[in-house]
């Protein structure tokens, strides 16, 4: 293989695929990055077996081929180079990298050792508007389970029917559901790992000029996301996602409308006193007397008044402050509507005059 590529292009591509390399991979070969020539372009690939990320960049190709280079060395080397042309030449097992005034020789790994990662071919592609998908993912992905002990909950349930695409994520304590409009002929129902979506969000934010996200599904359960020249290939989680619709409370006895910023800062302040007490804070809802409070024997106690328009009898409800902070810091609305029924039933957070997004959070049962 013999190619020339611009440092800035290669640097950006390596930075992106580098995120996908796990620190302790299952196979030594996964510590490498695969660079190959495909259809006159350079394809840079990394994989951790679960997720494969590929970035296509333009390059001057003098001789086709593929090389497998230790990721860490390559990324560090390229980032230290000045902008301009980089030449990559493979000579038997060695890879020679030349740039202005720099010549490096790296030991290559056998390309065959690297898992074959062909994109699923011939699948129907779904083209979605990037901005709205990004918006939905931002509002939903954070509430998926972080650990993989319950694999289904570590994913985001995406379903599209009759022009509406719904994203739902829950870790069993809170649930976020966001609906966006899509083309009528889009049909979709899969659980996609939240990690993959986090990466999709990062890529989508970096690719400012791209308008679309393309999704295609293969018959063997692989989902491919394409944003511009970057592809993310991952397995969909196979299984029945819990029926989250049934846990969304149908009615409530009280509502309170808060200023988002004010409530967030009140929760943050109150949580100072909750550090030793499993982050439990108490939300007190009462006409003209709503507050957020917390206490623990070590840290003392604090009560922060918050302004709220309360309708109904109100009451006390205890929450893990982390869940409230997560939710409140992800929404962009100035105001937030909180609906509750007693201190033990899940409370619902909504955006005023917006039915497309809601969050259900399970309160903490506290003694006394």
């Amino acid at each position, binding site marked *: 293989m013999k190619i020339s590529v611009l440092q800035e292009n290669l640097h950006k591509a390596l930075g992106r695929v580098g995120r996908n390399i796990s620190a302790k991979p299952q196979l030594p070969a996964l510590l490498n990055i695969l660079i190959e020539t495909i259809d006159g372009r350079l394809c840079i690939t990394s994989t951790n*077996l679960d997720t494969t990320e590929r970035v296509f960049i333009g390059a001057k190709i003098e001789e086709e081929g593929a090389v497998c280079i230790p990721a860490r060395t390559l990324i560090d080397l390229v980032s230290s180079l000045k902008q301009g042309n980089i030449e990559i030449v493979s000579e038997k097992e060695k890879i020679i990298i030349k740039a202005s005034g720099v010549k490096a020789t790296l030991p290559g790994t056998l390309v065959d050792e690297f*898992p074959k990662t062909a994109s699923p071919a011939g699948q129907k592609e779904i083209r979605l508007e990037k901005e709205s998908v990004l918006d939905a993912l931002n509002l939903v992905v954070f509430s998926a389970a972080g650990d993989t002990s319950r694999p289904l909950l570590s994913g985001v349930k995406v379903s599209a029917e009759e022009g509406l695409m719904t994203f739902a994520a829950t870790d069993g304590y809170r649930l976020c559901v966001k609906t966006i409009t899509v083309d009528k002929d889009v049909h979709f129902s899969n659980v996609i790992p939240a990690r993959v979506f986090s990466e999709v969000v990062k890529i989508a934010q970096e690719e400012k000029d791209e308008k679309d996200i393309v999704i295609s599904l293969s018959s*063997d359960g692989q989902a491919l996301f394409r944003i511009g020249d970057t592809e993310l290939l991952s397995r969909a989680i196979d299984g029945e996602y819990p029926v989250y619709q049934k846990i969304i409370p149908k009615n409530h006895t009280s509502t309170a409308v808060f200023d988002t910023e004010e409530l967030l800062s009140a929760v943050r302040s109150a949580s100072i006193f909750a550090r030793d007490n499993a982050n439990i804070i108490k939300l007190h809802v009462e006409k003209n007397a709503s507050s957020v409070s917390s206490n623990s024997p070590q840290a003392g106690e604090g009560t922060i008044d918050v302004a709220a328009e309360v309708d109904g009898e109100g009451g006390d409800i205890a929450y893990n402050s982390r869940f409230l902070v997560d939710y409140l810091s992800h929404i962009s609305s100035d105001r937030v509507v909180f609906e509750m029924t007693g201190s033990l039933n899940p409370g619902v957070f909504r955006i005023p005059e917006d039915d497309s997004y809601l969050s259900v959070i399970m309160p903490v049962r506290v003694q006394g």
Partner: protein
Amino acid sequence: MDLNKTWKAVLAELELSVSKATFQTHFGQTSLISLENGVATIGFPNPLMRGLVENRYYSLVKSVLDHNTKQNTSLVFIVMPKKQVLLDRDAGPLFSQENQNSGNQTLDILRRLHVRPESTFDNFAVSTTNQMAYAAATAVAKNIGSAYNPLFFYGGVGVGKTHLMHAVANTLILKKHNAKIVYCMGEEFLNEIVEAIQTKTSAQFKKKYRSAELLMVDDVQFIAGKQTAQEEFFHTFNAVLREGGQVILTSDRPPGEISKLEDRLRSRFEGGLIVDISPPNFELRVAIVNIKSLAAGLTIPSDASQMIAANITDTRAIEGFIKKLRAATNDGKEAITIDLVTTTVGTKGKTAGIIQKPTKRVSGTDVLEAVGSYFDIKTATLKGTKRDRPIARPRQVVMYLCKTELGLTLEDIGGLLGGRDHTTVIHGVDTITTELSTNQQLREAVSGIKIRLWAQ
């Protein structure tokens, strides 16, 4: 051949050939999906693993598999991700408490009021024996306090008095969450008065009962003969009615027959609607069996449910029997067949052998002949005048069977047995009934005769 076993053996051998890490990564999540005509299909969690193993270990896997199966196999590698299963109770507190959201609030209220949420009009089977009571109860549920007040149900055990009463309460709660409903047993009412007097909380007691929108007293006959209780009940009754509240009472007999019931109470009870609920007939019992089995999540074929209804007359016993069936079928996982029902009914001790096909007609003469042939006695002897025990006992069995199974009148039975007096027949039936519960031999004899009689 057991695929799992084979694959385990193969894996064990592979584990020896490669390093531990390699084995874990490459083969940890694999499975042997099929092995037919020398083609082994092996499943992998993702395409990357499949590719890796196919490239590197095809020959190794093949040789190990060939060695294990003693045939020349070719391998097919496919991607077969493990299907994830997540039960609601494992999904976290949001999901495990799901029913709290909709019906739960109502459930809580019902529990607090001691109203049984499962007793509703929907699962009450109606037939000629309880049609009137059902109509009255639904009318009262629609117009609390104005339709029939008080509503008085009486009847034997397990006829559905309490069920109807609770159904009214359930309907009211659904309409009005904060309805004031007071439900108690006659005896509880009594105890509460005693307690109120002892602890000097009569005011609270009065407030609780007299402010009720719906006052339901089960087995009201228990307050009869207790002077203070009757007096307090009288005032409560008047107060509730005056405020437009509804009173529903149940008893085992009509107010006129409750002894030691004060006249003023009796006249008030009789001022409303008094409805008699008779024991359920066969058709109604079949319907009850079906409703109860549905609630227990069992599917009982119609011949089996008829068999149950024919053998068990008490509704509570039916409920118990269905619980027993549920246990016998491993929580409903196994199918319920008529044979299973037959054997389960058969192990019920007292009802042992009261097995009958509800269809076949049997006459008194048939019984006479069957008993005669069972005990090896001529029918003429049974009809005759001899009263030796070896003859008298079978004669009583005839009386018992004719009475309990055929429902013949005492006179008819007496006539059948050579013109015996009806009191003799009563004595015979009673003797056998009592003896059946203790005498195993007699039970066997009776069930043996019944099998002969009703065997097809």
